[in-house]
């Protein structure tokens, strides 16, 4: 608790510190490559009868939005005098972003990665190692993001004096969900300005995939008070249906406590946390951000879940219609276009957060294709 109190007060200080904000802004501009474009997706728009815009977070340095948060927190860690950074990673996107930020700022870096992810996202594992991070395999449970977080937390409570835990999503104990949301809000703030420039009005609908929820919170947060902007979160329906086969926490879970936050949770009748499944490692998590849980309950945020096979179709659709290979995580958000359970605004403006690029997923795609070939 003491380290969380300290983090809270240090963070409050830097968020009002113009020097810190200036340095952060410069890293965002020169290192990350911000602002990222808001691209009008011509062929998708024709196909779906609305004006589809893609927020190109896939063009961020390291290939996903994760770096926005990592640079911010790594600067904060350096300010707090920490020499060593601990992080968890699922798909490896957060891990790669942490490793890059640490290399750039001269911090030591250890990343915990579940056994399953260690193998299915091996190119990201290599990138982390090239960047000088030590990747530690976690051989427990399902070997995915949840186990990686457990291991990172245990490391942190043991080395809390000299180490900083750089959490990658809007989950975990306060103040993490707030810090990550703030650093990711640059996404939504840019979108707001860019949509005004392009269309002279606010968008009608925002779409983002939700695992822990950092890209979704980052996009939604600056729009929360704009009541007429519909917010839709798309979760990983996995293989559909039963427990253990999906990661649709908001859609199918119930409230509980995991990793120090009270939020929706996939759990059994006695509160044991259930394993999750998703084709995308980045969404494969049985918890979700507490603020997103609140937004769901308040009715401000609508939630739907899409299945792995539908996601694969969207993955190819964007690749072949717009020339962009999306991360499987982001392909969940795209899938809403084909299955708009809450409708699409006819001729209206829809912004989709293209949170990451798909290079890391090629092995999974190859494997899925092979599987499909066999069943034919």
């Amino acid at each position: 608790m003491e380290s969380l109190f300290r983090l809270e007060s240090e963070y409050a200080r830097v968020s009002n510190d113009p020097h810190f904000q200036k340095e952060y802004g410069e890293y965002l501009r020169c290192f990350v490559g911000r602002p990222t474009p808001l691209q009008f997706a011509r062929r998708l728009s024709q196909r779906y009868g609305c004006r589809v815009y893609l927020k190109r977070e896939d063009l961020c340095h390291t290939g996903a939005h994760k770096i926005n948060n990592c640079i911010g927190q790594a600067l904060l860690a350096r300010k707090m005098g920490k020499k060593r950074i601990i992080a968890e990673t699922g798909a490896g996107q957060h891990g790669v972003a942490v490793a890059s930020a640490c290399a750039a700022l001269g911090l030591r870096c250890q990343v915990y990665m579940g056994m399953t992810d260690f193998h299915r996202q091996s190119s990201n594992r290599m990138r982390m190692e090239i960047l000088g991070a030590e990747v530690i395999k976690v051989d427990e449970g399902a070997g995915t993001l949840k186990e990686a977080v457990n291991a990172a937390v245990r490391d942190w409570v043991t080395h809390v004096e000299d180490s900083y835990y750089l959490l990658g999503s809007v989950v975990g104990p306060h103040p993490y969900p707030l810090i990550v949301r703030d650093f990711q809000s640059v996404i939504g703030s840019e979108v707001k300005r860019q949509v005004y420039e392009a269309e002279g009005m606010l968008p009608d609908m925002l779409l983002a995939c939700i695992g822990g929820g950092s890209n979704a919170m980052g996009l939604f947060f600056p729009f929360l008070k704009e009541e007429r902007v519909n917010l839709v979160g798309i979760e990983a329906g996995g293989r559909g249906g039963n427990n253990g086969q999906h990661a649709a926490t908001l859609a199918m879970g119930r409230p509980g406590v995991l990793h120090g936050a009270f939020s929706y949770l996939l759990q059994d009748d006695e509160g044991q946390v259930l394993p999750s499944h998703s084709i995308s490692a980045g969404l494969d998590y049985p918890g979700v951000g507490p603020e997103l849980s609140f937004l769901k309950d308040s009715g401000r945020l609508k939630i739907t879940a899409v299945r792995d096979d539908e996601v694969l179709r969207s993955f190819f659709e964007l690749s072949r219609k717009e020339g962009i290979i999306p991360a499987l995580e982001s392909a969940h958000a795209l899938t809403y276009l084909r299955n708009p359970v809450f409708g699409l605004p006819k001729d209206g403006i829809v912004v989709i957060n293209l949170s990451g690029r798909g290079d890391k997923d090629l092995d999974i795609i190859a494997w899925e294709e092979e599987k499909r070939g066999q069943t034919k």
Partner: protein
Amino acid sequence: MARPSESFPVLLASGRKAFIPFFTGLFPDRALFRELLLRADDAGADWIEIGVPFSDPLADGEVIRSADRCVLNSGFAFKKLLEELNFLKKRLRAGFILMAYFNTILQESPADMGRMLAEAGIQGLIVPDLPLEESAPWEECFDRAGVDLIPLVAPTTSKQRMHEAGRRKGGFIYLVSLTGVTGMREHLPRGLSEYVLSVRKQTDKPLCIGFGISTPLQAKKVGLLCDGVIVGSALIHFFLGKEKDFSALRRASSLMKNIRKALDGLGNGV
């Protein structure tokens, strides 16, 4: 034994150090768990701490995690554990203290959970991921049901929060000996006595120390500093990988007896 808030003053007055062995609920199986608790009672445990297996035990090291996994994989149910404790409560002198992660407790309302625990003979509850800042309403309900909510203090805890832990209703404070997770260690953490003294300055509540205490000698040294000793991983590790082995049971009970002796050897006011 009555609940810690009632019995600890009596223990202190008699000069006896509390010995609290820890076992994972229904580990290695129901029959051996029962046998372990009976032997702990014979060995002179004052309370027996029972951990509720959890899918994500953040505060636990490799040994207790393995035990949790073993029990969860063979179809653990919290209700079954409560049934077993209910059966044992009249047959043992020692009282029960339950260790559960918050999500287990959260499945019922505070009042209902308090009643369920009390019915099973549970006198104290430790929730490692429920901070003082959020525990007050639970503490109230449990107290009314006759269950002490035991606060935890770690080396990183501020003086203010140590003081606050001392003002709570729980019959003792659980002092985590080190910054880290449960598990056996070769040596006691450095600076332990200074740390215990710093807690004593903030509160006169009885202090029991756990995490990393594995041998009778370590227990004796720790016993000199505080009012009770908690030993878990050192007892559980005998059973890992050989869950049906009776020699493990023998070794666990002999370790418990030796720890009891080491603690008693301290005598009055040593």
